[in-house]
């Protein structure tokens, strides 16, 4: 066997060992119910901000404390605590990927990734702030034109 084959073998074995150990550190994407069922375990919680419940963020009191309620697609809710300011695009997001653990009745996240509506499904141009809103007169004009 050539030296290279030995080196190749050793390196490949090392790489595979690395990848196997990496796979063992992976976690899962979960719903609220599942996250609650395994307290203390690190998960990726997929949910969105429940706007009907109050959100607590007062930068004067503590800039590193955000608390809100998250609701997942099944309708389950959980109180979320995040020790950071509100993440960017929080209000705009339609989905949140929250990484953290469920502990003492709360989901404590280490990071929140906001998922915004795709720019390819954009908002109605008529509702666009910069655009003129059609008024009734032009509507009637159209209607008469059609007749």
């Amino acid at each position, binding site marked *: 066997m050539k030296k290279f084959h030995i080196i190749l073998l050793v*390196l490949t074995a090392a790489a595979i060992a690395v990848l196997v150990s*990496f796979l063992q550190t992976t976690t899962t994407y979960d719903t609220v119910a599942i996250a609650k069922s395994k307290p203390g375990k*690190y998960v990726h919680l997929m949910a969105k901000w429940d706007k009907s419940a109050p959100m607590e963020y007062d930068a004067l009191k503590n800039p590193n404390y955000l608390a809100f309620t998250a609701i997942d697609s099944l309708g389950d809710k959980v109180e979320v605590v995040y020790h*950071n300011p509100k993440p960017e695009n929080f209000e705009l997001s339609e989905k949140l990927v929250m990484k953290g653990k469920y502990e003492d009745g709360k989901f404590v996240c280490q990071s929140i990734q906001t998922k915004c509506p795709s720019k390819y499904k954009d908002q*109605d*141009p*008529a509702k666009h702030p910069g*655009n003129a809103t059609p008024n009734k007169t032009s509507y009637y004009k159209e209607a008469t034109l059609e007749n």
Partner: protein
Amino acid sequence: MDYIGEHLLPGQIGHFFVVVSMVASLTAAFAYFKAVNAPLEDKKGWLKLGRLSFITEAASVLIIFAALFHILYHHLFEYRYAYQHTSLSLEFKYIMSAFWEGQEGSTLLWAFWQSVLGLIVMKREKQWEAPVMSVVSFAQFFLATMIAGIYIFDVKIGSNPFILLRDSGLLDEAPAMHLNFDLLQPIRPDYLTLVTDGNDLNPLLQNYWMVIHPPILFLGFASTLIPYAFAMAGIWTRDFKTWVPRAIPWTLFSIAFLGLGIMMGAKWAYESLNFGGYWAWDPVENASLVPWMIMVSGLHAMLIYKHTGYSLRSSFIFLALSFIFIVYSTFLTKSGVLGDSSVHAFADIGMNGQLFLFLIVFVWLAPFFAAKTDKQRWIIAGVTLLLSLGTYFLADKIPGFPLYVILGGVATYIVLLNKQVPAIQKEESVSSREFWMFVGSLVFFLAAMIIIFQTSLPVFNKLFDSNKAPGENDEFHYNKIQILIAFVIGLLTAVTQYLKYRTTSTRIFIKKILWPTIISAVIASLVLAFVKVNYMTHGLGFLINIWLALVATIYATIANASYIWLGMKGKLGNSGGSVAHFGFGLMLVGMILSSGKKEVLSWNTSGIAVNFGKESKEKTGENLTMVKGVPLQMNDYMVTYVGDSAHPKKQQTYFKIHFKSKKNNEEFTLLPNAFVNYKGNEGLMANPSSKHYLNHDIFTYVSSYYKPDGKEDTVSFKPNTVGVGDTIFYSKGYMLLEKLAAKDGLPTQEFDKSDTGYIASVKVQELNGSSYSSDMLLIKNKGKVLYRTQDTVMSQSLVLQLNDVHNNEAIIGVKESNDVLEYLTLKAYKFPYINLVWAGVVFLVIGSLIAMFNRVLKIEKKGIRVA
């Protein structure tokens, strides 16, 4: 129906040339393909057709480019692309950023560079023109289909950048855009009068790096095709050897520009994103890093081959894989598969199948060319067709099927390659340069494979229908491996240049490398002793790895700098490799130091938020709240939020943050900015701002911001009747009415002569604290209040107003409310030695380009001599 005000011509021209481009590139690919094996008398004709078609293709791409630019520049919002990516307020320089914000524009940019490089190949590479250009034209055809936007049997091919807004589906849900406000009716003829402004460019992309980073990156992307095409040409024409010296300059070019493009992206991330750094192991970043790493391995394999005859097969494999991974990276970023795991991938526009087909075809193209006989070629072509169809139908039924198709293609290539390409049986000597160079290439390649495996987790989820998410310390899983790679590569980069090809005598080797080693040891010890990297977040083991990698990369830097004199006698023209290695080492040193010693300055340990209230177990956080006008200590600085100013046209606010060093009284002001409530969406999109020093940066951004709008303020003014010299108490202290003056006949025009103005001056004294003065103005006429000012003592949360004046007594309204406070939350880092990273990149690129020019000159000299 005729629509009012539309400019249809540019779109029609554009789309017409998209079709021309598709036809021309396919014709060119075919003509060049035929030219390769055609008998001499036919060859000329095929070559002529190939050239003509490719020039037509290049011209079409240019016209498409110009048409789309025209649409964006003139804000023709009847086109979806202009509507979605620009707005009237967008500055001219960002029109270009808007151009490549969308998938179609970035594909077009890629096609543009590929056609430019193709023209250079056509001009320069006479011997290799036909096979190389055949591959290039074929790739060009695939790019053209990505912007085709045509339907074949209900299957959409590509996404047309020239699609009209009214055809794009964006207006389908907008009743106002339809006749009679009825969605079932057609779109109204005057709809354009309602579309007065576009959607604007994503604010995060409104940054000058976004103007130049994509063109350079896509030049890098496009350039990886040429070495791939050369490798294919080599195995196809069975001329296994002579392509290597021709491909080396192209590979160096690719390394320089892909590397530069990636690191410009890093610079953009550093300057305009707020994840606090230049690299986050984001899939989009990794996906372009990996082909670069493979290309570097490929370059070293080719150099070994050129000097010793070893590792020819590896050259073939690395160069093929580099481009295949470029296509894979395109698949990752453009297919939307990264949805949950990347911050800045493109959204899915329904081109998954097409992108995957691009990948399958360019993977299986390699065994197609590596086949020995035409019969084998046709079998492979058939297999590719079957597998492509198979992927379409079986991907959901057989878990992992698409992966097996790709791996199968690569394996077939390697098998056929080994049958065709000869290899030297004799072993390399352990004391030879080629031995360690190859070990280095292999380690680098495996490092790339590990990165892409980790990055592909979301792809594996799709393939095997699993639900794996990255682990708790995602970045650490990359770092803990790559720090070891940095150690090994650092050592090899330092030592290998001092070895000779074939065999090295131990005595000479030691003699040469002794001094660089001693100098490196001294400098590394000094750095360890005085710079003090003590990053303990992941324990002592990891810290020791950091130290080892730091020493190794310092060694690489010094040894390569020394080699320019010791090995090359200071001849810079020949030292491209050493300069590039020096830059690479420097960049790694900078990365290790800046990440290992990154400090959060804005630790919330003092000031406003000592009381954490109900969350008392709360540790201190990384963000600091600053009230406007109130200095706060932050690390070694007194920091004040002085004020803010708005961008004249956009909803962009610049925050003035004043820093004063307590050490040397140095003062400076940073202007981090943010889009506040952009387009009516509540929230912030922040851009950082940094103060650059030679050996570190102070990096800040605003993480939350509050400005009272008066709407939510429910606290009312409490009236206090006082005479001059009387005091009023408030929660934090008291205030004293110092002066009350009345004046008739105000000089201002707006007021009548009979009006009376009153001015009350108050001194506010905080208990055991500072004092402030406040003046209020009241203007009355015959008992009626005409005008009244409010004065705010920001740091005391006080708002004062003069309610009324009676008999030399003032009625002063006092309001204590949090809602008067204007405050922001700041995050600040200290990034030490970040400049080493940027300097390293510059040297890496310059070194690669020196090496490239040097080789081109040598080839040309040789050519003249032969002629």
